[in-house]
């Protein structure tokens, strides 16, 4: 399971997106600066980073033959 394997990149990215979206949602359950920071740092960074990683993996995946 190489880190350069497109499937691995997609899995890592998807996992990060799931974690990021859940953290982003959970941060909305409370009011205050700390949830806001959690939203930006946890939700934002994990989601955006994961999405970029997954998309890179998708682009590197071999196209299906007809």
């Amino acid at each position: 399971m190489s880190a350069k394997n497109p499937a691995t990149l997609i899995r890592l990215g998807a996992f990060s997106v799931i974690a990021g979206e859940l953290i982003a949602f959970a941060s909305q359950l409370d009011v205050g600066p700390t949830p806001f920071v959690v939203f930006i740092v946890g939700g934002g960074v994990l989601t955006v980073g994961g999405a970029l990683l997954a998309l890179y993996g998708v682009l590197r995946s071999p196209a299906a033959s007809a």
Partner: protein
Amino acid sequence: MLELIPGPIIAIVATLIGVLLAADFLLRPGRARQGAGPVMAAVAFIAVPGLVLTIGAERHIGMSKKTEFCLSCHEMHPHGSTLLDAETLAGKHFANRYVPREQACYTCHTEYTMYGGLSAKMKGLQHLLVHYSGGPADPIKTYDPYKNRECLHCHEGAASFDEAIGHGDEIESFRADTVSCLECHKPAHGVEAGEVTKAYRGEKQFDLPQVGAKDGAH
């Protein structure tokens, strides 16, 4: 249409869709380039996460206008406690419901931190840094002198304002900020030096208004 649906429901649905779509790629990464795979990838990793984060940011910015948000920081407790002191300008506004209690701070500080331009937002981030690292200035001061605009957008044109002695003659000075409303109407909060530090360190407790969901009940 969207405003008819409560924000939490939109956030829950968007998050659920986002998690399910991403989970599909987590379990079956091989479908990324098969059939509708690329389109689904764009939806799962661009459209839906963008929607989830936009909804979240909108909700967080909305929540940060709440009195509850401001008073969640200990260093703001001295200022928050003055909302209960009818001798202060803030307290008079709060007691008489001149400001909505849920957004008492924001109503009079509309261009503070997150709600102004880029420089104001950078100052807002600086406040977070100060909150978690060093400690606030004591006494806390606004960056710029308080603008009469914040008072006039409610009071100008009101009969009680127009009929008050001196207001009519000075209205242009008020608009131009050459005479501050606070010169006569003070103190705005009346927080003494040292109180902010005591509150930040937890050395003194302050009575705070209850402005949660139960506010407005009998």
